[in-house]
C-alpha cells in the first residue's frame, strides 16, 4: 500500500519535472532578454538600481529567485545553485551596492550560461503513436479543449490594467480585490507591455485613450507582437462610444468594450465569464484495466493533460471507489480476467446515480460488429488499443467536457451558475449525515438580499439580476472549494460549510456582508449599494436536516427583523 503510494508519487513528480523543464524553454529566453536589456551593449551603465517600483533589475531578481527556488526541487541542482548565486549578486545592487561594469558583465554572462545547465529533456514515451487508432468517436480536434491547461482554483486570477485615471484604477483595484482578483495597474502602455513579457496576465484591461506615434491603444495592440503571443483575453475601456473604435476592438479579438462611467459589477461579470474556463476543476476519470502498467500509463498521460485520473486494476471495489471518487467518465478495458468490461458496465448501470455516466471501452478488438455489440451492453464508445497518447487525451476530454456541460444544465441555476434549489437541499442532507457520522462541525447559512423588491421596482429586473449575479460571484470567491452554494429562491441563497465552526462561519459571512455592501452598482446614472442579511446555524444542535434548514430560515428572519444588513446565529428553541 505504502509502496503503491510512493510509486504513484514518483510518477507524479516525474510529470511535474517534465512540465517544469518544458517551461524553461520559454522562461530562460525571457531571463536572457531581461539581462540583455539591463546589461547588453546598448544598456546604460550603471543600471537603474533603485529598489522602488517595478524596475527591470527587480524583475530579474524576482525571476532568478523563482528559478533558484524551483530548479533544485525539480531535479536541476546546478541550475538552481547558479540562479541562487546570480540572485544574491543582483540583490546586493538592489540594496544599494554600486556595481562595477565588470560585475554587470559577469552577471550578464551568468544569465546566458543558465541554459547550458538545463539537463537534457527526456520525452515521455509515446505508446505506439505510429499505429493509427481506430475509433467510433468523431474525429477529435487537433487542439485540445480548454481543460488541458486548467488553472488551479487556488491561484488568483491576474488582471493587468492600463488606465491613466488613478481614481478609477483604485476603484477597480478595490472592487476586483473583493472577488479575489489580483490587479497590476500601469499608467502607461509601454510599462505594461514590458511587465507582461515577464509575467503574462490572465486578463488585460486597457483604456483606449493612449496615443503614441499617431496610433491609439487598439492600433498599438494590433501592431505589437507582445499581445499576440499572450493569447490573453482583452477588454477595452472607452470614454465615448465610437463605432469605428468598436470595430477596431472587435478585429483585435476584444472580449469586451465598456464605456465610462464604468458599470463595475458588469465589468467584473464579464471578466468572470472570460476566465471561467481557466478555472474549471480537472475532469475526474476512472481507468479500469487489469494491466497495471498500462492503467498507470494512461493515468499519467491524462494527468499530464491536467485531468484527475485514477487507475484501477482489480475491479472488485469499483462501486465503492466510484462513490468516493465521483468520476465523470470511465475508461474500461474489455478483456479482463474474471469479469469482462461489459459485465462491469452493466453492474455500474444498475445504479441509478450512474445511468448517464459515459463509459468508454478500450480494447484491441477491431471487429466492428463485436465492438457494436459491446456498446449495446452499457458502453458509450470504443477506443482501439494501442492508442496514441494525444489521441487518448483528445477523445477523453471531449467526452468529459460534454458530460460536464450536461450535468451543469441539470444541476445549476442559469443566471448565477450556483446549484439549483433541489440540488443544494440534497447536499445539505448529505453533508448533515456526514457531519453526524464523522462528528465534524457543519454550518448552514441562508442569505437574502435586503429590500430586493424595491430594487427591482426602482431599477428594473435587469439591474436586479446584475445584483444577484454580483452576490453569486462574491460567494463563489469567498467560500472554499469544499463549500457548496445554491440559489435557494429568487434573491435567497444557501451555503453549506462543512468542517466549519460557528464563529468562523459568522466571521466569514460578516466579511461577505461587508464586501457586498461595498460594491457600487450603477443604473440610470445613479450609483447605489445593496446590503444583505444572513442566518447561520450549526448542525450539531439539530436532530435532522430539515430542522436545520428551518432554523437557518428563522435566523435569517431574525436578522431581517433586527434591521437588516446583519448576520444572526440561530438559537435552538427548547420546547417546554
Amino acid at each position, binding site marked *: 500500500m505504502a509502496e503503491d*503510494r*510512493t510509486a*504513484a*508519487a*514518483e510518477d*507524479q*513528480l516525474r510529470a*511535474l519535472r517534465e512540465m*517544469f523543464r518544458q517551461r524553461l524553454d520559454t522562461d530562460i529566453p525571457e531571463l536572457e532578454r531581461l539581462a540583455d536589456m539591463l546589461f547588453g551593449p546598448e544598456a546604460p551603465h550603471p543600471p537603474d538600481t533603485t529598489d522602488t517600483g517595478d524596475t527591470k533589475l527587480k524583475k530579474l531578481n524576482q525571476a532568478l*529567485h*523563482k528559478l*533558484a*527556488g*524551483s*530548479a*533544485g*526541487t*525539480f531535479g536541476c*541542482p546546478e541550475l*538552481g545553485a547558479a540562479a*541562487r548565486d546570480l540572485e544574491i549578486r543582483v540583490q546586493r545592487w538592489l540594496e544599494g551596492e554600486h556595481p562595477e561594469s565588470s560585475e554587470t558583465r559577469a552577471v550578464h554572462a551568468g544569465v546566458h550560461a543558465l541554459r547550458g545547465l538545463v539537463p537534457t529533456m527526456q520525452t515521455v514515451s509515446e505508446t505506439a503513436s505510429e499505429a493509427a487508432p481506430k475509433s467510433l468517436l468523431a474525429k477529435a480536434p487537433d487542439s485540445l479543449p480548454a481543460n488541458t491547461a486548467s488553472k*488551479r482554483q*487556488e*491561484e*488568483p486570477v491576474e488582471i493587468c490594467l492600463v488606465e491613466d485615471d488613478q481614481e478609477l484604477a483604485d476603484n477597480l483595484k478595490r472592487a476586483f480585490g473583493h472577488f479575489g482578483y489580483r490587479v497590476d495597474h500601469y499608467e502607461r502602455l509601454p510599462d505594461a507591455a514590458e511587465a507582461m513579457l515577464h509575467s503574462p496576465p490572465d486578463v488585460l484591461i486597457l483604456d483606449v485613450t493612449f496615443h503614441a506615434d499617431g496610433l491609439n491603444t487598439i492600433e498599438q495592440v494590433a501592431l505589437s507582437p507582445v499581445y499576440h503571443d499572450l493569447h490573453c483575453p482583452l477588454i477595452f475601456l472607452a470614454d465615448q462610444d465610437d463605432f469605428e473604435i468598436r470595430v477596431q476592438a472587435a478585429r483585435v479579438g476584444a472580449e469586451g468594450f465598456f464605456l465610462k462611467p464604468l458599470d463595475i459589477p458588469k465589468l467584473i461579470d464579464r471578466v468572470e465569464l472570460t476566465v471561467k474556463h481557466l478555472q474549471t476543476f480537472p475532469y475526474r476519470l476512472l481507468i479500469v484495466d487489469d494491466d497495471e502498467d498500462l492503467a498507470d500509463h494512461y493515468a499519467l498521460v491524462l494527468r499530464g493533460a491536467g485531468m484527475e485520473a485514477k487507475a484501477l486494476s482489480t475491479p472488485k471495489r469499483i462501486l465503492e471507489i466510484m462513490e468516493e471518487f465521483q468520476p465523470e467518465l470511465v475508461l474500461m478495458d474489455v478483456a479482463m480476467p474474471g469479469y469482462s468490461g461489459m459485465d462491469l458496465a452493466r453492474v455500474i448501470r444498475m445504479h441509478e446515480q450512474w445511468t448517464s455516466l459515459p463509459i468508454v471501452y478500450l480494447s484491441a478488438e477491431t471487429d466492428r460488429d463485436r465492438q457494436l455489440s459491446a456498446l449495446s451492453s452499457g458502453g458509450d464508445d470504443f477506443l482501439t488499443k494501442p492508442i496514441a497518447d494525444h489521441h487518448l487525451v483528445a477523445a477523453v476530454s471531449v467526452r468529459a467536457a460534454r458530460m460536464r456541460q450536461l450535468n451543469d444544465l441539470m444541476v445549476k441555476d442559469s443566471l448565477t451558475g450556483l446549484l439549483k434549489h433541489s440540488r443544494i437541499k440534497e447536499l445539505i442532507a448529505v453533508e448533515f449525515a456526514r457531519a453526524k457520522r464523522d462528528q465534524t462541525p457543519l454550518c448552514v447559512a441562508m442569505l437574502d438580499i435586503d429590500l430586493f423588491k424595491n430594487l427591482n421596482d426602482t431599477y428594473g429586473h435587469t439591474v436586479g439580476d446584475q445584483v444577484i449575479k454580483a452576490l453569486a460571484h462574491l460567494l463563489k470567491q469567498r467560500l*472554499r472549494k469544499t463549500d457548496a452554494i445554491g440559489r435557494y429562491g429568487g434573491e435567497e441563497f444557501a451555503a453549506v*460549510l462543512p*468542517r*466549519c465552526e460557528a464563529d*468562523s462561519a459568522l*466571521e*466569514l459571512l460578516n466579511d461577505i456582508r461587508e464586501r457586498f455592501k461595498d460594491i457600487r452598482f450603477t443604473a440610470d446614472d445613479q450609483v447605489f449599494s445593496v446590503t444583505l442579511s444572513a442566518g447561520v446555524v450549526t448542525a450539531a444542535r439539530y436532530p435532522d436536516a430539515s430542522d436545520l434548514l428551518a432554523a437557518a430560515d428563522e435566523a435569517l428572519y431574525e436578522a431581517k427583523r433586527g434591521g437588516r444588513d446583519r448576520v444572526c446565529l440561530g438559537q435552538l428553541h427548547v420546547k417546554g
Partner: protein
Amino acid sequence: MRTLQKILYVEDEPDIQAVARVALEMVGGFTLEICSSGQEALESAKVFHPDLILLDVMMPGMDGLTTMRKLRDQPGMAAVPMVFMTAKVQPEEVQEYLAQGAKGVIAKPFDPMKLSEEVRAIWEQDHG
C-alpha cells in the same frame, strides 16, 4: 500523542506548491491546505484548523515571520507549531527563527520524497 494530520502550507510559488502537494499528500498522507500568501493563510487558518503550519520565509507582501506573528495572535493558534522553509539556511538565521518561536526550519530545495519525514520529525520532537 496526537497524530499529525492537517498541515497548512504557505508558499507563493505555484511550482513548489505542486511538488509539496505530492510530497505531503501522496507521500505523507497528510491533509493539506495550501495558501499563496500570508494574508490568505490568516483567513484559511480560521476555518481549516491546522495541526501544523509550514511557512515560506520569502514571500511578496507579508513575509513568513510577520505571517507567523499574526497567526499566533489568532484565537486557538498559539499552540500550533510553525515551521519555516528557507533557501538561505545560515545558522544565525535559523537561530533567529527558532528564537521567534518557530519549531523548526526546513531547507529548500527540499527532497519531495523526504519532506514528510522531516515534518513528522519536527512534530514528534514538539509533542514527544
